[in-house]
């Protein structure tokens, strides 16, 4: 599934995103964020973050939406002194995305570190979390547990 993102600008915020072209408002719901990544039409292959060129055929990829939801494949809570001004503790996970065949690494909601489980359903959010490489507050994507932690 691909989404045309030309009409889906990022929300206006004071802080810059931690990186460009990794999330945007969902085309279907402006209140909801989705991940962005690369797609090669010839190889039907996705990448996150976007690879400029397809690793298989080396054609240019295009930026597409990767959807909002996924399932936790694995996770951990990092309890030692965190990098990049992240909260202590903070949680990270590999997420199997629902809409495209990608397993991505991402932050989880640091407010939910006690409830995480493999197989739990999650949805993307974006918020001010930590600082970037030049010490500025910045926006980072993170997944939140769905209330019912449903499997897809």
């Amino acid at each position, binding site marked *: 599934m691909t989404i045309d993102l030309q009409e889906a600008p990022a929300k206006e915020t004071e802080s810059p995103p*931690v*990186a460009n072209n*990794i999330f945007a408002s969902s085309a279907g719901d402006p209140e909801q964020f989705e991940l962005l990544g690369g797609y090669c039409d010839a190889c039907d292959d*996705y*990448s996150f*973050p976007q690879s400029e060129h397809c*690793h298989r055929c080396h054609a240019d990829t295009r930026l597409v939406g990767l959807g909002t939801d996924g399932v936790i*494949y*694995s*996770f*951990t*809570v*990092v*309890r*030692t*002194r*965190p*990098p*990049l001004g*992240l909260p202590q503790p*903070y949680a*990270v*996970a*590999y997420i*199997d995305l629902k809409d495209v*065949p*990608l*397993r991505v*690494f*991402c*932050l989880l909601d640091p407010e939910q570190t006690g409830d995480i489980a*493999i197989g739990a359903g999650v949805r993307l959010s974006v918020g001010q979390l930590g600082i*970037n*490489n030049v010490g500025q507050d910045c926006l*980072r*994507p993170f997944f939140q547990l769905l209330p019912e932690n449903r499997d897809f």
Partner: protein
Amino acid sequence: MAMIIGASVIAFGRKPGRSIVSMAVEAGLGAMRDANVNFAQVGVGFFANALGAKLFGDMTIGQNVFAELGLSQIPVINTENACTSGSTAFYLAQSCIAAGQSDLALVIGSEKMCVPELGLIDSGANELDTQLGMVTPAGFAMRAQRHMYEFGTTREQLAAVTVKSRKQAALNPLAQFRTPETIDEILASPLIADPLTRSQCCPIADGAAALLLASDDYAARLERGIRIDAAVLTSGSYENQADIACWETDSRTAEQAYEQAGIGPGDLDLVECHDAFTIAEIMHYEGLGLCRPGEGGALVASGATSLGGRIPVNASGGLLSRGHPVAATGIAQIAELVLQLRQEAGSRQVANCKTGLAHCMGGDRKGDTKSCTIVVLSR
């Protein structure tokens, strides 16, 4: 191929006042004295360091090291490949000798990490994963979570890796942590990244190690040559969707090494593997074919990988107890095999050790390692 005629490791640990260069020179001198050959015959130098540029703003350190050893004018190659920096330098050195470029190659790895600026190791400041909170312990912790989920590996089995490591390190005067720890103590130490506690994570260290390699013809004139049967360097597959509970890069690299050496895992007498975290050692058992996938936890708990067991792993204490000065590690692992194959390992000697394997991996990208090295040695 080539042979190893000299080996040296300096004690790993906190070494305030010692520089990357001074530790490297000590190790290099040690390897040269061990081989007892003329310095002027060294035709090429390889130097490994991973963090000097980041922590101290240093670069091309190898030329400083080899100049201090009185080895100027020769080709000097600096290598950085994360935790395999040292074993990558070794890989290049044996290739150089096998190609007939030189009769003697000196390989040195040195790292200084015990400084406040270090922080948690990551795989590059500008990688998106790093920017989203990926630090090395987190990557291995997620492997542990998935391994436990898929195979029923237990926290006690993870801790058993450290119990074994400390016990074996007590027999190695160069190791950093030599005090025994129980499973309860290991599990009660502070959580670093769930489920890995502090005692399940290798300590940072300052340290250096060196090896002197020789052509077959040159080594034939000496009596202490250890044969290099395989030396393999690979990089990750980075396939989506990466299976983080079974390390394809491990098994793929091992297959190449076994084929090159003409042996199988059943022929090994000793393994030194990259046990940066307890789960890593368990997964490397499986990747190296010491047991079937998913059975690594049971293997360590059975005692099969302890000294005196079916296939001793990390007799030196490994990264978990010897310490992990990144660029020295891969060379120190090979140096341990050299000692064992010479039957000079003292109280940790593996009886009748004839064939050993050293495994190292470094860096992280998309749920895979960036580099993996395997070396097989025999006498």
